[in-house]
């Protein structure tokens, strides 16, 4: 199996006043292609710091990080921007869509920074994949939370990244919509996408294949989910959608 993420002895220290906080205190792990990982842990456990390091949004204090076989821990700002653009698709808790900008234009954004030709066609393809073709000319404030998150997922996959990083993607959504979004992630995972989700809801983690638990900047537990919940079944269990 191909290794997408390979981190070795990752450290991240913050200076807070006169104490040093070890947000990451020697994290070593590997994540393989096609994996679907939930990162869990109490706040302050280092899971967000880990995500930011993996997403190349922040640099570790020490340790090695190989993404798709490339050593990113030694890269400069411009290279990191290209890595984020090419290899990683981000999904945020607050969606982070550009306001007053249509769904289609939002999805085109990573393609714009990649300098891809035929952007509109590819963006339309990604929007179709998340099932929002009929809403692609709507602006974010004209879409529901679930629809906005779908647009954000379309934006995350449009550049065909090796890794999708989702930070509390269902944190702002109700149960039904959360299941819908998880169903979409499962579908993408079935198609072979590697996905990492940060969550503190055990129920959400149950949709994944593997759970990594953080505590005090270290990996506390790393286990395979035996009874993975199928989001479509979970949706059905909720009963028919209210009108």
């Amino acid at each position, binding site marked *: 199996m191909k290794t997408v993420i390979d981190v070795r002895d990752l450290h991240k220290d913050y200076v807070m006043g006169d104490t040093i906080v070890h947000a990451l205190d020697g994290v070593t792990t590997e994540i393989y292609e096609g994996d679907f990982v939930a990162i869990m842990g109490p706040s302050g456990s280092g899971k967000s710091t880990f995500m930011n390091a993996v997403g190349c949004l*922040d640099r570790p204090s020490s340790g090695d990080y190989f993404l798709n076989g490339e050593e990113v821990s030694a890269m400069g700002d411009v290279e990191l*921007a290209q890595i*984020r*653009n*090419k290899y990683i698709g981000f999904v*945020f808790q607050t969606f982070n869509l*550009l*306001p007053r900008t249509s769904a289609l234009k939002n999805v085109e954004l990573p393609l714009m*920074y990649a300098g891809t030709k035929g952007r509109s066609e590819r963006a339309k393809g990604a929007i179709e994949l998340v099932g929002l073709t009929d809403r692609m000319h709507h602006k974010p404030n004209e879409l529901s939370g679930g629809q906005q998150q779908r647009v954000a997922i379309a934006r995350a996959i449009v550049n065909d990244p090796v890794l999708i990083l989702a930070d509390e993607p269902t944190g702002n959504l109700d149960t039904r919509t959360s299941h819908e979004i998880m169903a979409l992630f499962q579908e993408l995972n079935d198609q072979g996408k590697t996905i990492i989700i940060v969550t503190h809801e055990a129920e959400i983690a149950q949709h994944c294949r593997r759970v990594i638990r953080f505590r005090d900047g270290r990996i506390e537990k790393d286990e395979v989910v035996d009874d993975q919940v199928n989001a479509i079944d979970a949706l059905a269990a909720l009963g028919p959608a209210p009108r």
Partner: protein
Amino acid sequence: MTFWDSFSSALRAIRANKLRSALTMLGVVIGVGSVIAMVGIGEGTKKKSLQELEIMGSNRISVVPNWRRGRGHSATANQSTLRLEDVEAIKREVPLVKNITGIVRRGATVKFGANNHRTNANGAHPSIQEIENAKKMHSGEWYTYEDEELMNKKAVLGWLVYEELFGGTQNALGAIIKINNQNFEVVGVVDYKGGSGWMNPDDQVYVPLKTAQYRLTGQKDRFSYITMQATSSELLPIVQSDVEAVLGKTRKSATGEELFRVFNQAESLEAIQTQSKLLSYLLAGIASVSLLVGGIGIMNIMLVSVTERTKEIGLRKALGATGSSILSQFLLESIVMCIMGGLIGIILGGAATRFVANMFKVPPVINSSAVMLAFGFATIVGLFFGIYPAVRASRLQPIDALRYE
């Protein structure tokens, strides 16, 4: 990320905050508009002065009595030191003078029927039509030298006088008017010249010199002033010094002070040009200050915009934007705002020029170099004042920017 992408991002950002963008642009609009309007009005004033000089006649030299000597004296012909023999001497000794006449001028009330009008009556040789560039007639003709010899009471009216007495439509030729209660026959009306001010060439009445001397004023050999025309404009300074030399022989006071002063048109021309240049510089200076203030306004708003959009910057960086693409986006935003402000400023400045020019009755001049200068300056203002906020935006770390609340 192409230039076009940065450009459309900038446009979108400007459109997204219409009111704020408009207020930001206002500084540049006013700056550019005032540069254009002020330079335009300065140029218009200059053009107007030159035109006025032109309608007063070309290559002119005038000699006036030196009034400074007699303190408190009012300027009337009876104290004048200029006499008939001065005109004769100039005619004789300065061949570069083409036309010359002594002028007896006096304030006069002219009447026709129930209409009356206060104007200047000028006794002058018929050659005044050459000197004052007044050959083009609305109707009739100038009086002749024969009229002058016979001291005929004939009059030529300036356009304004004709309008006041005859309503501007009636036939004036052959009509008998009263000038200071003496009957004169109107023989000609000079075409409209478009003058203004206290020496308005349209507001004059001309009668033969001798008629004025013997029948209107009684000033038989003193002139209010002498005016003449040189053969060419380059010769004006030479002619002036010749005239000064000729008159200097006889017209000096006991203390050796000259009792006359000589003016030539080239001097007035130069004075107008110096004055208008000074005026232009002053106005452009004032306008530049408003452009500068506009630029500071742009910087202010762009800094606010960068802070406000920190999260957007973080997102763009997460999606793969490099520092330079963020830089170019924000820089273009301020440049585009300045250019738009500049374009609006040019239009408004043009309109303001027309409006003010109309108000002051000067020709509207829209100087293309002022337009280019103002526009270029606006772009530079956008670039200069946009750089700092754009650099700040581009240097934000993605994680800090994303976390910003």
